């Protein structure tokens, strides 16, 4: 599989009145062409900030202190604002969590899509309109012609999300970032939106970065998974491998913290709380919640080591680290 996007050692801080919030602490992640990568973690783990960084949308008071984001070999962080705008919305598109507020309330659904095509691709008004109709059909609208004329307040949550997806697809992006695309939707509608994303990725060849806190969604939608905790990437693995052999203590805790309908489990919440990113512990940021924390975890930040095929974990309990710690 070819590499589409590679984030390396990304460090992002935010200046606030309370002090410096160290949101991302050296994140490394690769997205391959055409795959669906799940990015999971609790609130405050840095999932959405990672997405914003990829889109070049970290603004003051946020600062990128280090790292690179290479998209098809080009470091997006070195681009000027003008150059970046050739990627944002065209090569890399986004589906937001708050589909209600992300749509313009005074512009019809069809016009929101066609306007985008006029801006990004210089299409004529008529051509853009035709393409908008096609896109609404592609995302499974029952009556695309009618939907073209409707305004966001006339649409259900699921329909708004479909319009958002159509907008994201308008420019045939290579990478689609979906930030909690089903949060707030009813389960039957959410299941259909996820089906749609899977289907679109297959049909258009676009890679999808699916940000979610729901491991069920990950298991049934993604091919690979990256787990984040408090601004650090703790584990990446193919989806089957992650659920069969979760390695990092945090991943294990996440899996046993959710009730499920397929089997009976004893609920076991993740211990402790996400540490404050104003004063995060040095070394591994999971140390204060970890049942296996060692002395070394308090000083050094664990590197990612391979524990299986395409399976990496950042924990001193594994691989070469475990020898060093012994």
């Amino acid at each position: 599989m070819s590499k589409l996007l590679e984030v390396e050692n990304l460090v992002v801080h935010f200046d606030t009145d309370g002090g410096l919030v160290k949101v991302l602490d050296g994140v490394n992640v690769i997205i391959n062409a055409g795959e669906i990568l799940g990015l999971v973690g609790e609130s405050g783990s840095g999932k959405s900030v990672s997405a914003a960084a990829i889109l070049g949308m970290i603004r003051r008071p946020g600062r990128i202190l280090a790292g690179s984001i290479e998209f098809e070999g080009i470091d997006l962080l070195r681009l000027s604002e003008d150059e970046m705008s050739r990627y944002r919305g065209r090569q890399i598109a986004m589906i937001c969590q708050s589909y209600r507020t992300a749509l313009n309330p005074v512009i019809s659904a069809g016009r929101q899509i066609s306007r985008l095509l006029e801006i990004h691709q210089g299409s004529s008004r008529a051509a853009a309109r035709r393409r908008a109709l096609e896109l609404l059909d592609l995302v499974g609208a029952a009556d695309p012609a009618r939907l073209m004329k409707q305004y966001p307040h006339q649409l259900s949550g699921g329909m708004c999300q479909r319009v958002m997806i159509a907008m994201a697809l308008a420019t045939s992006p290579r990478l689609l970032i979906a930030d909690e695309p089903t949060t707030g939707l009813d389960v039957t509608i959410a299941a259909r939106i996820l089906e749609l994303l899977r289907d679109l990725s297959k049909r258009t060849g676009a890679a999808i970065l699916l940000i979610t806190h729901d491991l069920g969604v990950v298991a049934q939608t993604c091919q690979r998974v990256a787990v984040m905790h408090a601004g650090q990437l703790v584990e990446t693995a193919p989806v089957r491998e992650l659920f069969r052999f979760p390695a990092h203590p945090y991943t294990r805790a996440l899996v046993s913290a959710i009730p499920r309908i397929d089997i009976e489990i004893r609920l076991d919440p993740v211990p402790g709380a996400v540490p404050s990113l104003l004063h995060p512990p040095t070394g591994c940021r999971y140390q204060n919640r970890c049942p296996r924390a060692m002395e070394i975890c308090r000083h050094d930040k664990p590197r990612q080591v391979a524990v299986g095929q395409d399976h990496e974990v950042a924990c001193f309990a594994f691989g070469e680290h475990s020898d060093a710690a012994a």
Partner: protein
Amino acid sequence: MTPLLEVEGLRKSFALTGPTTWAARLRGERPAVRAVDCVSFAVAKGETLGLVGESGCGKSTVARCLLRVIEPTTGSIRFAGEEITTLGGRQLRNTRRAMQMVYQDPTAALNPRFNARRTIEEPLRLHFKMTSAERRERLNEIISDVGLGTDLMERYPHELSDGQRQRVNIARAIAAHPSFVVLDEPTSALDVSLRSRVVLLLEALQKRLGLSFLFISHDIATVKYLARRIAVMYLGVIVEEADSTSLFAAPRHPYTRALLSSVPVPDPDFRHERLVLNGEIPSPTKTYVGCRLRSRCPLAAAVCAEPVPRREVAPGHHVLCHLA
């Protein structure tokens, strides 16, 4: 044994007014949203009944009618053997002491100008004559029950975390020794790791205090974990009610099947037997003769236009469907 709570034929409709309904009103019709359209169920002492369904199905309206936060249009609600739809004044207040509610949004449910202590003591002040020493003693009992520290008691809602706020809400609900608590999506606004903690807390409280719960949620996995019996609502009616085990092993109503087959399962090899409904939930202003799911149901047949009887398909397993 008579159940603690018995609801029979509960209906609640909200009249529609305003300019869009004038034509219908001229024709002599009375357009209304039938939020709850003949719902019956019972909750035994110490039991949890789970009520699931999607937005707009009427779950929260049922909850509000039970506590008479809003008045039911028709129907009977018996609590501890007493009809409460006709109660007023002091009697109603006494009943309300025994029936409490925890809301979905832990922030909106708290008065921002009350600190945690005052919030939790409020029901004690309303329902009991207690000296301040007695109140303090009871407060300490309650907060140790829900796992809050005394150091948090002087804090205001904005100084508490989401998880702590929901614990304050739960503390307030159990303060006056209720026997029945309605939990309306108590975990939906919380982060994943907090959710499981609140679920475990509710489970422990129920065991220790012998509480009965009506647990309302669209999070079906959590309902399965907490509830022994589950009722599934669709468009104002309960379409299926059964033991948790038999509901998950053999769901009979097409809506239940569609709902369960949409729940994401954290196992990449798990394959649902998918049943997909057409379109989206129709308007609750219509009056229905036959099955309400008819227009969306892939299994619909001619018979579905006829009124649907509630049938017992297995012991304790009730379904509202011609075909099940």
